[in-house]
């Protein structure tokens, strides 16, 4: 009995266990999402993460130990980001026609994201380094962490804000657009990718390829723009 317990503990702490837990949680999240007819609150990132967190808390496996397997899955985000070029290429005619409006929406949206985070953070009296960590929150994790470090924020905290923003955007976008009566998939995708980066992009890919393609485009461009804008805003306004 003792031996079985130690063997089990050994297996639970191998990287493969972290990978298995993540895949299992994802599978369960998809099943729940299907059963609830794609209800926004059953977002697969949100539910999947909560299932893993619950399993870790129940089993006493630490976050660090889990990440020994989890990081292999996180690593695949790189190639998946590169792959976004393919749906974008498929939407080339739409992209060509709308290049001007897209560029203007991108600049205004990027600036609005940074400034609302700055003024709200200051207005709500959040600690200075928390406000700095908030500024790059609408871009994909690796950019946000790099920018946060450069301006004196806390990179790991920025990464967490990125995830929360992404989940918020992914959960809220569809109900919000339905409520406003906005139907254009290109607009929906672009705005989601801009405000909710990869998690938003992953979400709108479930709606249509066009939405996903423009989300990926907005995510990439906003990442580039924010990396340039945030340090400028900090040196001018803080």
């Amino acid at each position: 009995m003792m031996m079985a317990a130690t063997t089990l503990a050994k297996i639970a702490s191998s990287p493969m266990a972290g990978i298995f837990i993540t895949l299992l949680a994802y599978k369960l999240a998809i099943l729940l999402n299907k059963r609830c007819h794609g209800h926004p609150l059953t977002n697969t990132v949100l539910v999947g993460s909560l299932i893993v967190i619950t399993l870790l808390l129940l089993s006493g496996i630490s976050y660090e130990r889990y990440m020994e397997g989890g990081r292999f899955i996180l690593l695949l985000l790189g190639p998946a980001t590169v792959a976004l070029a393919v749906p974008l290429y498929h939407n080339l005619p739409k992209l060509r026609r709308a290049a001007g409006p897209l560029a203007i929406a991108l600049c205004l949206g990027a600036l609005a994201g940074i400034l609302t985070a700055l003024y709200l953070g200051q207005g709500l009296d959040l600690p200075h380094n928390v406000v700095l960590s908030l500024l790059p929150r609408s871009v994909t994790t690796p950019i946000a962490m790099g920018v946060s470090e450069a301006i004196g924020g806390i990179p790991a905290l920025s990464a967490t804000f990125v995830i929360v923003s992404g989940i918020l955007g992914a959960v809220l976008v569809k109900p919000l657009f339905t409520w406003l009566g906005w139907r254009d998939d290109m607009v929906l995708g672009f705005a989601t990718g801009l405000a909710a980066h990869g998690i938003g992009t992953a979400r709108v890919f479930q709606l249509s390829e066009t939405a996903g393609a423009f989300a990926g485009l907005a995510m990439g461009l906003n990442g580039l723009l924010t990396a340039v804008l945030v340090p400028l805003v900090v040196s001018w306004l803080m």
Partner: protein
Amino acid sequence: MLEMVLWLIGYQLLGEFIAHTLGLPVPGAVIGMLLLFITLLLRRSVPRGLQQHVPVLLSNMSLLFIPAGVGLLAWWPLLQESGWRLLLALVLSTLVPLLLSALVLKTLLGRLRARE
């Protein structure tokens, strides 16, 4: 499948190389995406391996964010401390750019269509 993996990792590494050489604060994968897009523009077609398997990869992109989502666990105490103020800042600073960019894009596209 193999062909897709080679394309994607190859372009990511190329992106990393460019980011490091030019000292850009941008992840290699984002530069890799732009480079692959330019390559597809020049080739005027999508290679078969990518055409077949990329949709499967992207439809499962949510999976790849779950380990990052679990990271919330590590910051829970601090998040609880700043509580509703932090949440309010996060909600609004996500919704404002989302709605503003959508509104701007929708309006400008509407004008573009009206002119055509």
